[in-house]
């Protein structure tokens, strides 16, 4: 157990040391989205005044998701492929699964921290146009816990799939489609006229996280029933974590 905490602490030390890099990486993409879609477009009349409320849950969910998956995935890709810094931890008596669990804990913490950094920015830019009703706040704890775990397990899975040379392609090839079909700028039920898209995006774990965020923050926006979004989050997390940990162990011991 002490090895596990040491591994978590090692990553926290590194995150703290690089905090401003971390904050920049976490905040920039949501900030641009919030500024353009939540401030510029409503103010020039290109989208309705209710648009900031519609995207609020989505953009927070996306921030949490991207922060955690980036925090776990990219260091793993670089560790296994280039720096091999992780080897010292993989050779510890505790075994590689402990390293994977420690990475997931860090992913959860970074995911939450990402949300915490974006929340005041979103509030500052769109606050005047937001209609937030926290009537389902009791569900915030399971939603946040599951969102963090989804993000971390997706990071673990990606970290064991992609190679360092593929990182540049991950942004247009994976991250942006995941975020835009998240769905960040529309709610999932509004896809009912495009049934095949509505079904297709269900493979995207961010859909469940975004819809769960809408359910607890902006319930008047039509959203997937909280029970389904929580179930979807839990199932996708379990699948990704299971596959991710197995792949991780296989990479650690050939």
């Amino acid at each position, binding site marked *: 157990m002490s*090895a596990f905490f040491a*591994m978590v602490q090692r990553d926290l030390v590194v995150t703290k040391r690089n905090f401003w890099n971390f904050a920049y990486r976490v905040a920039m993409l949501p900030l641009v989205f919030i500024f353009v879609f939540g401030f510029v477009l409503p103010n020039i009349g290109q989208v309705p005044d209710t648009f900031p409320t519609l995207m609020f849950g989505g953009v927070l969910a996306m921030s949490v998701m991207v922060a955690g998956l980036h925090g776990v995935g990219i260091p793993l890709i670089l560790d296994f492929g280039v720096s091999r*810094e992780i*080897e*010292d931890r993989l050779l510890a*008596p505790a075994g590689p699964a402990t390293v994977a669990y420690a990475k997931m804990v860090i992913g959860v913490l970074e995911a939450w921290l990402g949300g915490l950094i974006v929340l005041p920015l979103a509030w500052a830019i769109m606050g005047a146009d937001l209609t937030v009703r926290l009537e389902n706040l009791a569900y915030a704890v399971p939603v946040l816990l599951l969102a963090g775990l989804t993000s971390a397990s997706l990071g673990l899975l990606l970290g064991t799939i992609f190679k360092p040379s593929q990182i540049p392609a991950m942004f247009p090839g994976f991250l942006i489609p995941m975020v835009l079909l998240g769905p960040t700028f529309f709610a999932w039920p509004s896809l009912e006229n495009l049934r095949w898209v509505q079904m297709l995006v269900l493979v995207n774990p961010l859909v469940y996280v975004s819809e769960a965020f809408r359910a607890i923050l902006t319930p008047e926006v039509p959203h997937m029933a909280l029970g389904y979004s929580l179930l979807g989050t839990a199932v996708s997390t379990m699948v990704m974590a299971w596959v991710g940990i197995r792949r991780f162990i296989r990479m650690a011991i050939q």
Partner: protein
Amino acid sequence: MLTTQARPTTGEILLGGRSVWDDLAGARRRIGVVPQHNNLDRSLTARENLLFHARYFGLPLGESARSTDEWLQRLHLHARADDPVAGFSGGMAQRLKIARALMHDPEILFLDEPTTGLDPQSRTLLWEEIKRLNQNGTTIFLTTHYMEEPDQLADRVAIINHGEIKGLDTPAGLKKLVPGQNVVSLELDEVNDSLLAEAIALPGVADLTVEMNTVRLFMRGASPDLGAIVAWVHRRGRTLVGLNLQLSTLNDAFIHLTGRGLEDR
């Protein structure tokens, strides 16, 4: 495989009579691994690399701090203890990797080509430390391409070629396998196949190897007839650039055992 980073597809690795895969955690506590590549944690300082390693191995904090200081001193790294290791030279990184592997006091230390790319000073320092560790009871498992290292440091040497052990003995024992223990090195202005065919037939020559324009003749018996060899070179109309008589080396044993001699030309 010996460092538990890959599972053997066949065979078994025993440590103290027990398969390492039956007690992976126990085996890992008993071995220290220094890979050839730099896998230090570049986001941390030298001291943090050692302290975190100790904690990954579950060592108590007080003991970890003490042995961190001790190893930093012993491997001449204390002046840079709190610097990030990203800026360390090759020699410093190598010493820190060794210090890290020794933090949990392993019985066996695996060193994979530890002196590759090091300056002579760092290399000497490492050799001394390896000797000292071994004298204090640590088994050293050293892999290297520099034959003078096992010659000076090792009690037992395995010569491995294409994954197969070709010879396993003391350095002296391996050198005895070379057909002639007295070696005459002839550096000539030019070497060709007909010259070599004649050289192998010279009286007393048991075997030969060639590298560039240097022919190494492995001579039977105690004192080779250098005069006759020099006379033969002159008869062949070649110019003698250098001449050397020495005992066979581990390098010769390696070439002899792996068959990288005349037949490879």
